[in-house]
């Protein structure tokens, strides 16, 4: 099993450009998450999904949109990239139970110029 796979691994954008980050998991997990990781701020939840066709806002959702059309995929979109969105983005998935850990992807390093 590949677990959680994120594409791309690196990307450089110009301010105002748009892009989509893809997360795929092969563990049949119900829950999926997008986080951003910034120095001194740990991991902050952007959006999450508790199942196919459902998404919800996390702690820092502004400037991002998500979609979960298939259970195994969770897409994170930046409609108009801003320098403040320069970060490392992590996708994670987990089973429904609260005492089960999250499984993370390798991360996407995104720079906005």
């Amino acid at each position: 099993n590949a677990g959680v796979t994120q594409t791309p691994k690196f990307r450089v954008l110009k301010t105002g450009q748009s892009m989509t980050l893809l997360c795929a998991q092969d563990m049949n997990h119900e829950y999926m998450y997008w986080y951003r990781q910034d120095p001194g701020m740990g991991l902050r939840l952007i959006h999450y999904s508790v199942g196919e066709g459902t998404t919800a806002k996390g702690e820092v959702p502004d400037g991002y949109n998500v979609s979960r059309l298939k259970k195994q995929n969770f897409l994170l979109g930046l409609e108009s990239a801003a320098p403040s969105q320069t970060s490392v983005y992590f996708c994670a998935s987990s089973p429904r139970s609260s005492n089960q850990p999250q499984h993370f992807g390798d991360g996407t390093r995104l720079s906005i110029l």
Partner: protein
Amino acid sequence: AQRVTQPEKLLSVFKGAPVELKCNYSYSGSPELFWYVQYSRQRLQLLLRHISRESIKGFTADLNKGETSFHLKKPFAQEEDSAMYYCALSDSGGYQKVTFGIGTKLQVIP
């Protein structure tokens, strides 16, 4: 609101010395607590969770509800322990909302 506090951004210890990474939490219910580790250039991965009461790579963590703490300990640090460590709290509500601390970078000096 649930909150996780890791008071130290950086902890430097000598090889062979004991390690304690501090984690305090704020949560009104019964928490599920985890420690995740991120080695250099690798993905975050689960180190241990309180419900399992296990020892992984020599690390242990005990949930102290009175002090609302879940400190991570290891009696003798090894160079390969150098990494970022994140304490995390999961609620038992409708979805698995997980709150992460800001992380502590452990540096083991040879």
